[in-house]
């Protein structure tokens, strides 16, 4: 029970924690106050609670595929918001924070959506055992350990980016976000295949023997860059198409920024 609980909570927390740590590190680097995090957490928790309370109604929508459709919609929205964030952050590379407020709202929306999606499953899992109090302690302990490990991983990423030089932190941070975003869009495609909204195909390749999705590295890479051992052609094209679009945006904005603008800024 304890181990199950650790794994379930860790898997969910890890994805949200990585997004939170990258965005709050970049927020600090861009000189935007981190107050948006409070709003993001508030809305995210409220979203996760509402989603889990309404799950029976949501599940019945779209001929029983409401869970897939709503989750895919949230992931697609996160992708679009990450694209907007990249464009805004790219503009502020050269030190002008003309869109600071808008950037903060976009970051808050990304995190709120991520917490809604990931928090929902944790809530359903934890409340499912609320009646069995004997098991509850093991489950709660496991949940705390899982959350702790997830948050520590996030903290590691946060300090990694916070200690980089500004120019590199922004470049690497935006590239990493592009990978996370590509993972989101390929997951959204997978959910639409599961709901039968997109045609299903045989997997393009199978890298399970090389790196299983359920292994520790596989789980980490899944959370970080959306690793999938047996993707279909639709998923792979969504992944690489989504990634390319974001990376082009990052590189164009980066190339247009004159190097001199960084000389005066403290690292």
């Amino acid at each position, binding site marked *: 029970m304890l181990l*199950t609980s650790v794994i*379930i909570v860790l898997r969910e927390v890890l994805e949200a924690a990585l997004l939170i740590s990258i965005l709050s590190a970049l927020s600090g680097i861009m000189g935007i106050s981190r107050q948006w995090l409070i709003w993001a957490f508030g809305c995210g928790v409220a979203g996760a609670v509402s989603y889990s309370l309404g*799950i*029976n109604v949501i*599940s019945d929508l779209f*001929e*029983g*595929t409401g*869970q*897939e459709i709503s989750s895919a919609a949230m992931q697609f929205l996160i992708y679009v918001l990450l694209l907007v964030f990249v464009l805004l952050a790219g503009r502020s590379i050269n030190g002008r924070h003309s869109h600071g407020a808008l950037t903060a709202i976009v970051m808050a929306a990304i995190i709120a959506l991520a917490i809604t999606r990931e928090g*929902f*499953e944790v809530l*359903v*899992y934890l409340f*499912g*055992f609320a*009646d069995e109090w004997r098991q509850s302690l093991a489950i709660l302990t496991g949940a705390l350990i899982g959350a702790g490990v997830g948050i520590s991983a996030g903290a590691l990423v946060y300090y990694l980016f916070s200690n980089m030089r500004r120019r590199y932190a922004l470049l690497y941070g935006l590239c990493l976000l592009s990978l996370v975003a590509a993972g989101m869009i390929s997951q959204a495609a*997978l959910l639409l*295949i*599961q*709901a*039968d909204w997109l045609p*299903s*195909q*045989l*997997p393009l390749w199978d890298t*399970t023997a090389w790196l*299983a*999705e*359920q292994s520790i590295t596989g789980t980490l890479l899944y959370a970080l860059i959306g690793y*999938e*051992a*047996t993707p279909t052609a639709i998923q792979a094209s969504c992944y690489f198409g989504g990634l390319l679009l974001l990376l082009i945006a990052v590189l164009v904005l980066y190339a247009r920024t004159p190097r001199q603008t960084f000389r005066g800024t403290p690292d």
Partner: protein
Amino acid sequence: MRAVMRTTLLVLLWLCGNREVLADKPVFELEIRDHLFFPEVLVVPANTRIKLLVSNNDPSPEEFESYELNREKVIMGKRTAVIFIGPLLPGEYPFFGEFHPETALGKVIAE
């Protein structure tokens, strides 16, 4: 303008027709009882899209999960979930209940 409307109508008709085709997928049923899957082994035709109905007879929620099938779905207590799987190459595809992975185990065999 008329051409545009006609094309739109044709596309809509095609989509409606397609949805009927989609509804014809073979249906297979799985049941969750006391954190166990019934049947534990589900034999399905290979290379075919399948509509899987998973009914959870326990009061507690479960999550149907399979790395091999690439599927993941929360099923609340006393509810039935629809999950589309396949087409699958002949072979074995294990699945499990993520909330009770010690007992809720099963596999799909495509042949």
